[in-house]
C-alpha cells in the first residue's frame, strides 16, 4: 500500500467525527434557522419560512447591541486586557529579582489557584466579593474611605462590564501568564547579553529581543483567547444572567434566551448560524497566521 492510500486512511476517523458531530449538526441547525420551529412544537416541527429569521435578526436594533457587547466588551476588551496583563505579569515573574529570591516557583503555584478554580466557583466567589451589601470589596473600599455608599458592581451599568471582565481575567489570566512565561524563558540568554553589549537598555532589549521572540506566542494566544471568549456563555450567564434587563446580553446568552426562554428555536438557530459565521472568520485568521506556518514547517 502506497503512501497515497495511507494518508487518507489515517485521516478517515477525524473526518468521520467532523462530519457526524460538526457537519451534520451544523446543517441541521441551518435548516432549523430557516423555519419557525418552536420549543413547544418540536414534534410537529416548524414551517419553512426562508430567510425571515435572518432578516428579523439583522434588522433589529437589539442585535447590534448584543453584537457590540460580544465583540467589544466580552471579546476585544477582555482579550486585550489579558494579553497586556499576562505579558506584564510574566515579565514580573521572570524578573531577576524574583528569581534571585527563588520566588518564581512559589508565584507560579499561586497563579495556579485561580486557574484551577472552575468558572462556576469563580463566579459565585466573585459575586459574593462584589456584592453591593455584604461584599468584601465594598467593605474594604468603605473602610479605606474611598467610597461613601456601597456600589452594586454587578448591577450598576457603569461597573458591570469592568466587573465581568475582572472575573473572566481572574479566572483565565494565569494560563496566559504561564504561556508567556514559558515563552520568556525560552529567549536565549546570549541574545540579551549580545544586546547588552550592543548598548541596549532594558526597554530596548524588551522591544528588540524579548517581544519579537514572544510575538508568535502572542498571536496564537490572542486568537485562542478570542475563540474561547467570543462564544463563552458561562461567565455572563452565571454572573448577571445577561442583565440587568438585557444590558450584558451577548450572542451566546442571546441564543439561550431566544431558544429556551422565548422558545423560538428557529430564530435561536439563526443567531447561532451568524455566530458560527463570525467564528469562521477568526478560524480563517488562525489558519492564515498560525496553522499555515506550522504546515509549512512540517512539509
Amino acid at each position, binding site marked *: 500500500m502506497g503512501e497515497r492510500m495511507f494518508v487518507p486512511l489515517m485521516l478517515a476517523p477525524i473526518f468521520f467525527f467532523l462530519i457526524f458531530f460538526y457537519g451534520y449538526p451544523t446543517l441541521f441547525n441551518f435548516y432549523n434557522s430557516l423555519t419557525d420551529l418552536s420549543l413547544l412544537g418540536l414534534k410537529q416541527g416548524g414551517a419553512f419560512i426562508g430567510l425571515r429569521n435572518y432578516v428579523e435578526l439583522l434588522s433589529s436594533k437589539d442585535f447590534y447591541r448584543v453584537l457590540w457587547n460580544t465583540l467589544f466588551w466580552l471579546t476585544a476588551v477582555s482579550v486585550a486586557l489579558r494579553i497586556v496583563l499576562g505579558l506584564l505579569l510574566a515579565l514580573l515573574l521572570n524578573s531577576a529579582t524574583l528569581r534571585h529570591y527563588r520566588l518564581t516557583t512559589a508565584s507560579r503555584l499561586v497563579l495556579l489557584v485561580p486557574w484551577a478554580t472552575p468558572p462556576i466557583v469563580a463566579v459565585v466567589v466573585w459575586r459574593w466579593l462584589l456584592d453591593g451589601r455584604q461584599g468584601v470589596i465594598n467593605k474594604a473600599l468603605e473602610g479605606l474611605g474611598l467610597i461613601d455608599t456601597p456600589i452594586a458592581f454587578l448591577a450598576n451599568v457603569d461597573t458591570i462590564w469592568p466587573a465581568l471582565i475582572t472575573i473572566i481575567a481572574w479566572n483565565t489570566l494565569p494560563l496566559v501568564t504561564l504561556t508567556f512565561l514559558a515563552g520568556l524563558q525560552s529567549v*536565549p540568554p*546570549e541574545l540579551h*547579553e*549580545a544586546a*547588552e553589549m550592543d*548598548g*541596549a537598555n532594558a526597554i*530596548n532589549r524588551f522591544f*528588540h529581543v524579548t517581544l519579537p521572540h514572544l*510575538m508568535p506566542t502572542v498571536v496564537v494566544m490572542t486568537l485562542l483567547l478570542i475563540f474561547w471568549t467570543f462564544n463563552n456563555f458561562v461567565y455572563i450567564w452565571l454572573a448577571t444572567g445577561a442583565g440587568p434587563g438585557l444590558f450584558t446580553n451577548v450572542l451566546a446568552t442571546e441564543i439561550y434566551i431566544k431558544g429556551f426562554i422565548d422558545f423560538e428555536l428557529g430564530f435561536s438557530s439563526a443567531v447561532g448560524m451568524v455566530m458560527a459565521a463570525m467564528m469562521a472568520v477568526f478560524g480563517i485568521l488562525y489558519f492564515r497566521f498560525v496553522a499555515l506556518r506550522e504546515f509549512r514547517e512540517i512539509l
Partner: protein
Amino acid sequence: MAGLSLRGVTKQFGSVTALTEIDLEITHREFVVIVGPSGCGKSTLLRVIAGLEQLSAGEIYVGDQPVHRVPAAKRGLAMVFQNYALYPHKTVAQNMGFALKMAKVRRDEIDRRVVEAARILQIEDLLERKPRQLSGGQRQRVAIGRAIVREPKVFLFDEPLSNLDAALRVDMRVELAKLHNSIDATMIYVTHDQVEAMTMADKIVVLRGGRAEQVGSPMDLYHRPANAFVAGFIGSPRMNQLPATISAVSSSGVSITAPGGLELSLPVAGHDARPGQPVTLGLRPEHLTVGPQSGGTSLDLDVYVTEPLGGETILYGHIGDNSTLVVKVPGGTDVGKGQRVPVGVVPAMCHLFTEDGTAFTPLHTNDKVERIGASSS
C-alpha cells in the same frame, strides 16, 4: 592605546570558585588566546572582562581606565558569542548596525560602516537576509561583522569556530588572523582547541581549574612548559609522560631511569632533586625518531597500532613494563603493527617534571632548544 590588564581577577558563583586571582597583561593589538579544557573557566574569564559577570575580587583596566565597575556597553569591547547570538528577526544589516543604532549614530553613517564591514568579510550580498537563511559559516561572519562595525578597542571571542566543520574552521582561522592584521584592535580569543591557540596566538594563557597555569608565546609554551599539565595540553599528539626515577644529580644535569630500561642524562637544573626521587619524563611524539640509532639513547617499541595520516604516521607501542609510548614519524616510514623498532631519544629534547608536575628548568640557552626543536619537527 588600549591594552588590557587583569589584576587578581577572582570570580565565585556561590561556593564555586570559577576564577582564582588571574593576572594578565595584554598589550595593544596583541592576539591573546585563552585555552584550557572544558569547564576550566575560559568563558567566565571572557564574560568578566566583557562585563557580563561581576567579578568577586580584583581589577580590570582598559588602557589606564579601571572598567570593572563600568557596565558592559560602556567598556568599548565587542564580543562574538559561541552560537553567534544573532538577532533572529533582524536582517544581517540590522544585526550589524544595531549597536550603532543604540548609540544614536546617524543613519547614513550606520549604513556606511555596515557596508564597509560587510566588504571586509565578503558578505555584502547577504545584508538583506535573515540569520536563519544563512549557513553556519555565514552566521559566523555576521557575528564578527557585528563586532567590527562598533570599532571596539578589544574583541572578545568565545570559541567562535567550534560550531563550524573542520575545513571551514581552518579557513576562518586564517581569516581571523588576517582581520587581526588589518584592524587596529586587541583580540582575546577563547578556545579549548590547542591547535587554534598555537596557530593564532601572540600570547597563550593556559587555564586549569580557574587558575592561569602559564602565560607565554606559543613557542614558549611548547618548548618550556611550566608544568606537566601545560606540556600535555600543548602539542599534538599529546606529550608522552612516563614515570621515572632520579638516579644521580650533578651540575651538568639530572640522570634518570625510565621504563624500558631507558637511562638518560638530562641537561636540567637539579636544585633540590635527590636520587631515588620519583619524577615524570616528558617526551614529545615528534621529538622521537624511529630506526637504527647512530648515537644518543634508544629504547625498543612494540608497535600495536599505526595511524597513517599521509604526511606523517602516528605509532602507538609498548615499552618495557607495558607503558604506552606514542611516536610521530614521517609518512613513508615502513613500520607495521606487531613490529619491534628502536626509538631514539635526544636528551636535550626531553622534559622533566617533579611529582607535583612542576617542570625542571633547562640548563642551556633558550635559542638552542628552539633550534633543535625547529630542525626536528
